[in-house]
């Protein structure tokens, strides 16, 4: 069985800052994962549909526009609608402290801000996926 961990890295919303998403994508590739990178300005619908078609274990959302409290709940809801409740969701970007708890309550399992150690992100994913 050579099942690889498959991760969708998506940038929902309108900000054009994709550096963080690319750094994470590369770090996860270097950790042996298959990373599907979808580029800028994805709608929540596009993210959920790509997650379904690509049969990913993990969805990483990079949001720096401040719209995370709108976009993340929508993505999580669409994933549920498509029967992808078992997909691990994590968020990266600029997330104020007070939003962390509500996002976690939605089912987001990891939140990584600027300066997060990429090795730790990779380790977090491996641990979460293997314990699932």
């Amino acid at each position: 069985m050579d099942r690889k961990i498959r991760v969708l890295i998506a940038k929902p919303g309108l900000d054009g800052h994709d550096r963080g998403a690319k750094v994470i994508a590369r770090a996860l590739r270097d950790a042996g994962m298959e990373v599907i990178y979808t580029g800028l300005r994805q709608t929540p619908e596009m993210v959920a549909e790509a997650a379904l078609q690509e049969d990913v274990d993990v969805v990483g959302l990079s949001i720096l526009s401040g719209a995370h409290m709108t976009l993340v709940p929508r993505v999580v809801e669409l994933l549920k609608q498509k029967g992808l409740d078992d997909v691990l969701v994590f968020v990266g970007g600029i997330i104020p402290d007070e939003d962390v708890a509500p996002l976690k309550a939605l089912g987001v399992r990891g939140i990584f801000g600027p300066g997060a150690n990429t090795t730790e992100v990779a380790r977090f994913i491996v641990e979460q996926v293997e314990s699932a």
Partner: protein
Amino acid sequence: MPQARRSPRQLVDSALTGDRRALARLISLLESNTQAAAECVAHLHPRAGRAAIVGVTGAPGTGKSTLVNELAKAFRRRGRTVGVIAVDPTSPFSGGAILGDRIRMRDLSGDDGVFIRSMATRGSLGGLARATADVACALDAAGFAIVLIETVGAGQSEVDIARTADSVLVVEAPGLGDEVQAIKAGILEIADVLVVNKADREGAENTVRALQAMLDLGAAPRAARHHGQVMDVADSSSPADDDQAPAWRPPIVKTVAVEGKGIDELAGAIDRHQAHLAASSEGAARRRQRAAAELDAILRETLLERLRQQVGRVGLDGVVDRVASREIDPYTAARSLIDG
């Protein structure tokens, strides 16, 4: 990790009745190369064979992904459903991969008549992944009328696609200094349709002329040496005698994929090639060749696996050590392993 809880049979049945989630899981299973994957193919194989399998290959930067995006839209406008397989390389260092072809395919989102799947090569070298043919079979059986396969795009030695697709598009772009590269790599020999993308750029006419000249050079024996090194045409289709249809000469289609220019002409050229395959003996010859190549690959893999199990990890390691220390040569070692 999402697991296929359903039996292979159930998964195939769901995937073939329009359950997209089941199709996605089925593809993962096919990629994982297990007994269950083989069982899935056993159920898929008799139900496939209707789709037009179209390969898209060419050097990096020629615009393959954008072209696939536009082609898929063109076929959708013609009322046909489209499956896309986009292959990107696995890093030989980490075993991971970044699959980025969806970036250029965002237009196709939200259309139930389209299914896109990114695949990593996972160690295969011919421009496709080991399971690409099986995944194409799954999309075919699931009812997609067109299956577009985008290869890695190393630009050279990507002949695997000729063994997997019915129609092969070779994409060139002006200004890449590609002419000699193309001759060298033998990539033109596998082309059924030549595409000069980015045709609004300077030098496009030169690229078209160079391709034209190369086609002229190879025109006479073309039908016979089609897919020269991989295709056994001598006995199955002597081109002129029993064949009513004239030999196929690859058309050269100019496109500007980012503007959608030339795409309808390209879709038309693909349809004409499909019609040619159906009308001539070449279609049957290719199907046979594809079956032979698939069987060959599976036999190789199965026999190697069986041998590995017979000899065992320790036994194999011992022989490797003896070869490494030049105690015996690799050919003698291989023979002794096989003969026991």
